[in-house]
């Protein structure tokens, strides 16, 4: 179906006519739904929306959306997207890939897209495994992961997607998970409206090769204790408001505190400041059991985006008025006439 106009569309209007080919029960379905909702909520014009992906289960994403889509090669989607955005800054460009695509083979492309702050919405589906190639461990797999390539368990420590993002100079990092059907579209909306490279880590369940990898965080019975939803300006509370995070006195660290009668402020609970890179550093690496996992927009501190700066600079050059006359350019410098 090709859509007529950007008038109010429903989530389902963003679905392409292609059959979705993920395994039944894969977390990718839920993410697809959340993205369709985000597009509909944002009134996205399909004609001006482009999904770019690398290779992997996650990277099949563009086929299922009735927008422009480019399924490229393994690990390089951020670079393709950079070219697209440079060529046409008016497009709303999304990048989708798995933990292998973005952090194994594609770490360099991701780093540089973040560092340059190209205006892209980058969705990293982290299932801590290579799905498409049938279950090898990935750079986000936990120590000791048994997989076809590590039958005795992996011996290398995982990288944290968001710590890597911050280390690379990202100006926007956020986290959500596949089944968070209210939270995820909210986060995606923030990413979409952020003018710059927005890195969103989405914890995603691979039901076939790494089932329940995040059950200890997302299961209903532990959710309250293990999930911290951050919001700019609001106190860092979890466990239904019973607990919060505060600065460990005299140290550069966070600690969990019980919120008593006096409320969060009295307990010294910190307010979330999404523009604070130092706080973001601490938040992205919180982990159970000692801490909850932080979800939401953890860091957001806009600066001029790359393609905007490039086009601004070009406009400045053109404004200075060197004529775009090739014949004249050829005649500049020494010439001579024969005959």
């Amino acid at each position, binding site marked *: 179906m*090709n*859509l*007529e*106009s950007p008038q109010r569309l429903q989530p389902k209007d963003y679905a*392409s006519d*292609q059959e979705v080919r993920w395994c039944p029960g894969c977390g990718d379905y839920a993410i697809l739904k959340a993205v369709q909702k985000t597009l509909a909520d944002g009134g996205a014009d*399909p*004609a*001006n929306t*482009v999904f*770019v992906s690398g*290779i992997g289960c996650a990277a099949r994403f*563009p*086929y299922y*959306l*009735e*927008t*422009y*889509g*480019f*399924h*490229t*090669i393994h690990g*390089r989607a951020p*670079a*393709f*997207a*950079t*070219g*697209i*955005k*440079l*060529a*046409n800054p*008016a*497009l709303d460009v999304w990048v989708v890939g798995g933990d292998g695509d973005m952090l194994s083979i594609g770490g*360099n*492309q991701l*780093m*540089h897209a973040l560092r340059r702050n190209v205006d892209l919405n980058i969705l990293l589906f982290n299932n801590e495994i290579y799905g498409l190639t049938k279950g090898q461990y990935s750079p986000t797999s936990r120590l000791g992961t048994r997989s076809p390539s590590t039958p005795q368990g992996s011996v290398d420590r995982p990288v944290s997607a968001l710590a890597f993002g911050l280390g690379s100079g990202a100006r926007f990092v956020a986290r959500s998970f596949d089944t968070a059907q209210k939270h995820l579209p909210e986060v995606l909306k923030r990413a979409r409206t952020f003018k710059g490279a927005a890195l969103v880590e989405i914890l995603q369940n691979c039901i076939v090769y790494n089932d329940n990898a995040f059950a200890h965080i997302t299961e209903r019975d532990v959710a309250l204790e293990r999930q911290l939803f951050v919001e700019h300006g609001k106190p860092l509370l979890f466990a239904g408001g019973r607990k919060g995070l505060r600065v460990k006195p005299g140290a550069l660290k966070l600690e969990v505190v019980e919120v008593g009668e006096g409320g969060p402020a009295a307990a010294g609970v910190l307010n979330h400041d999404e523009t604070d890179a130092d706080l973001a550093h601490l938040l992205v690496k919180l982990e159970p059991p000692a801490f909850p996992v932080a979800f939401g927009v953890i860091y957001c501190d806009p600066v001029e985006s790359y393609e905007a700066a*490039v086009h601004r*600079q*070009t406009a400045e*050059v*053109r404004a200075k008025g*060197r*004529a*775009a006359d*090739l*014949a004249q*350019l*050829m*005649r500049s*410098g*020494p*010439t*001579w*006439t*024969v*005959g």
Partner: protein
Amino acid sequence: NETATAPGPVPVLRRELESAVVRFAGDSGDGMQLTGGQFTLETALAGNDLATFPDFPAEIRAPAGTTFGVSAFQINFGQRRIKTAGDAVDVLVAMNPAALKVDLKDVKPGGLLILDTGAFTDKNLAKAGFATNPLTDGSLDGYRRLDVDMSALTLEAVKHTGLGRKDALRCKNMWALGLVAWLFDRDRKPTQSYLERKFAKEPAILAANLAALNAGHAYGETAELGGEHLAFSVPPARIEPGLYRNITGTEALAWGLVFGGQLAGLPLWFCGYPITPASALLHTLANLKQFEVGTFQAEDEIAAISAAIGASYAGSLGVTSSSGPGIALKTEAIGLAIAAELPLVIVNSQRGGPSTGLPTKTEQSDLYQAVFGRNADAPLPVIASRSPGDCFDCAVEAVRIAVTYMTPVILLTDGYLANAAEPWKLPELSRYQAFPVRFHEAREGFHPFLRNAETLARVWAKPGTPGLTHRIGGLERDDKTGNISYDAENHHRMTKTRAAKVLGVADSLPPQGVEDGAGTGRLAVVGWGSTFGPISRAVSNLRAQGHDVSHIHLRHIWPLPKNLKALLAGFERVLVPEMNNGQLVTLLRAETLIDCRSLTKIAGRPFKIVEIEEAALALLENRR
């Protein structure tokens, strides 16, 4: 304080030469490239035809006085057509012992050596690896010599400017240029104006450079340079009338790409990652932002080509460029451009390999890579430019093919073409035929792999177009719907279609012609790329001697011109000289089944004319 700057003939006895080869050689810091460039300009303005060969050291700025720090610039100029920078040197200007050490072997017996004796200190002699002083040990007996303490004379000449010794000595190259200008009766004006522009804000340095230039010239006029140090004259050549300038391959390429974009009606996005000798193209285009040109220095070659493909996907013309090792990294993405059928121009400035190899030396050894170097059945058009100026037309041609056939195109140049300059007749831009791109907009029956029945090009529907949302990628696509397809027969058909599309480019080409000589005969010398000069000269020399030889030079490496097989079949023997270990020859043998013979030179430098002459004679005389 100098009057000799006045133009007009100097009253001196000059021997008229048909052509001459001069090489300026010195330390990387001695400014030899600049000197050579200025002498080239003076010579072009004097009406000679010419060719040049800059030869840089691999090191950025090697320690002064070492042989690996020697930087040289060679120019061949004459009153006849000049095809190469010259086999052997008539005049060597050596600014130090290391330069003499490295370059003497190329000087003709009896050639003239101009030596800065001031630099022949014990320390420099040792650094250059001379056990004894060549100025005095008789080893230079077979040459004519002009020993002059340029260092001292330069210091003397610029004394009045008050420059420090170090800065003053940096004017030595201008002193040498002045002398050589006198030797060949060149006008120094262009150099003077160049210096005035360059040092407009540094009056002392300007004055010193001008003084050195003039002093060198005056030295020629006044010193006892009669007798064996006779001065020369090289009268103007008979060349096609028109407006000329000097141009390097890099400039021609950059302008050709810009012009190609204009003819296609597309903005150009150049995405590259620096590598010798390809970086200069990035630098040149980065300064052309007044045109519809953007440049992007990516984090690596993979990102560079990926961004270029992304730009093409978005409706611009993506261009990327590198040298062999970098092109290797782009291979996977080239496959995607082939599969997704997007236009893309890939420029390869070839250099010596394998691996890092000889990064600053030229070679044409990436033909295999260009034609065959991808996984799967992944054909693409390959063209090669023959000379600096030809880079302009080749760039236009590459863009034409890319957008007409929706395909990546590889354009082969090399380190020699990138850096060398030649006089170039400015093209009449209005004479070129435009090939404006029409983006697909019709919704009716649209899918992204609808094809033009004639060219087999697929439609180009760019993001932002209402109603044409679609998905493409590297998985095989159904030829009827554009959707992913794992169907066996479809894949066979698509593979054949992709191949047919690329072969179809040959339909748009003029028949392969003969550069020089008859269309049939005893021997065809078939070349490609920058071997044009030496082959051309060698064939014309042989023809002048009465030999039945023809020169055929290919621009289109893949697909080959349709008449090529028939053309080659008209010759008894075929010789294929290449600056590699025999690559085009493999392709020609496979495609024509003609027993083409290979002549190889893998030495980081162009062929000498005699090397080609000898090989041709051997075939003519059935010695091989």
